[in-house]
């Protein structure tokens, strides 16, 4: 048995905590708490990136860690929080159908991701290759969050956390993408967040709620 150096162990711990943040988003019924979980996930991904930079002496990764921290840890959560406050939904609690089943299905997705990533693990690309399974699980959990929830804000969080998972996979397995690509993706996400905000207002204006379940109704009356 070979021992990984302590810094690489810390990367593994951070990857596991990122996964935990995904699960806490999945289980949170309060909007503001879910946004906080998303912010923590961004911070964790940024910290993992910084550690990868320190281990691999890849200096451009420090920049992308900083970018991730400021965008996904601070700016986007702040924007979402402000939107929620403006729409007076701070105390909104989403009614999740079968919360325990949703979370258990999430655990099944993690196992699926592990099973899919097994062949990649055998390639022995880098010592942190196991993180690919975790990243894939985070992507799948983001997808599952968008499917299982009806609240638009939570669906947006699912979308954003998918991006977190992809970023983690890129950083952990290949020591990061070229900086141009990373900058492009970062600003894409930022623009997406702004656009989502505009959509929030439009949806809220037309159906006076952000519950997508109500979008399928054809008439204004409540179903009998």
């Amino acid at each position, binding site marked *: 048995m070979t*021992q990984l150096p302590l810094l690489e162990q810390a990367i*593994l711990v951070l990857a*596991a905590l990122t996964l935990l943040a995904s699960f806490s988003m999945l289980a949170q019924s309060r909007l503001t708490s879910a946004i906080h979980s998303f912010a923590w996930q961004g911070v964790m991904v940024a910290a993992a990136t910084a550690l990868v930079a320190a281990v691999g002496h890849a200096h451009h990764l420090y920049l992308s860690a900083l970018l991730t921290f400021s965008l996904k840890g601070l700016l986007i959560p702040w924007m979402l929080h402000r939107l929620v406050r403006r729409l007076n939904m701070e105390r909104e609690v989403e009614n999740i159908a079968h919360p*325990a089943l949703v979370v258990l299905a999430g*655990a099944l997705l993690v196992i699926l991701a592990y099973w899919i990533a097994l062949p990649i693990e055998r390639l022995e690309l880098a010592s942190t290759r*196991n993180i690919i399974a975790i990243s894939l699980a985070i992507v799948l959990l983001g997808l599952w969050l968008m499917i299982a929830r009806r609240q638009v804000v939570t669906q947006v969080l699912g979308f954003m956390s998918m991006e977190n998972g992809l970023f983690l996979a890129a950083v952990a397995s290949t020591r990061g993408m070229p900086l141009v690509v990373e900058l492009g993706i970062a600003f894409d996400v930022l623009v997406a967040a702004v656009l989502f905000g505009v959509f929030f207002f439009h949806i809220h204006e037309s159906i006076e709620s952000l519950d997508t379940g109500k979008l399928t109704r054809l008439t204004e009356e409540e179903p009998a």
Partner: protein
Amino acid sequence: MNEQVTGYWLATLLQPLVLLLAAPLLVGWIKRIKSRLQNRRGPAVMQPLRDLRKLFAKQPVVAKTASPLFRAAPYVVFASTLLAVTSVPLWSIWLPSTTVADVIVLVGLLGLGRFFLALAGMDVGTAFGGMGSSREMLVSALAEPAMLMAVFTLAMSAHSTNLSSIVAFNLDAGVVLRPSYLFALLGLILVAIAETGRIPVDNPATHLELTMIHEAMILEYSGRHLALMEWAAQLKLALYGLLIANLFFPWGLAERFTPLEGLGALALVGGKLLLLGALLAVAETTLAKMRLFRAPQFLNLAFLLTLLGLLSNVILESGL
């Protein structure tokens, strides 16, 4: 060599005695810290021991409808808990009592005690007893899988379900950051809170009809029966404290037992338990008790954490 063997057996025999004294003191310590945090002076740390002595001197009153099981249950509960607490490494790793039993036996012993506790609650036929038993079973049915998963996570790293081997493995490994241990620790803490009936699942200080779980089951007991039941509950709290302290933070445990090393290890373990007790008191002061029907959600979280621990052990720690 011969002296070594005598030392081992002496340590094995002394361990339950030390714990029998220490468990009420731990409860007293938690109560003391809690009252200080709530700006009360609070009872002395010795108070639970004094209560036990007083209860043992009193004559037990048994209901007319009680079956012999009602009289036998306190002894079964007390004996199984004492046996369970003896099998957890306290001050030295390779003691005869800790090597003979493993994690599954430990969970089984706790299950035996719980089974008789629930039976005793229903035996007299009062409404409260039956209600308490049904609630206890609800909580423990959900807590037990989480507890097993937490210890299995440790067992998978150490390749053994024996508590001594797990502790020895963790001692040898030195400083290793394992995500699975983090999750298992969090899950085990949640399970410990639920199983020992602390806030936010149960409140040990109240006899309010709507909320009590453990107190409802032992409502009919008095005298030495009540003393045994309370003592068993205190031992169980110490047991979970010991599990958390010695499985996850085993530093200071003696590999080979000598009287001096044993005393040093005991002092360290005592310090760890006092710290855990203080943390519990702070948590109990800041948290509010939740509704009973929220308890499954709480334990679902514990289960999820331990499941994540198991998964991250498989996925992430192949290189560790």
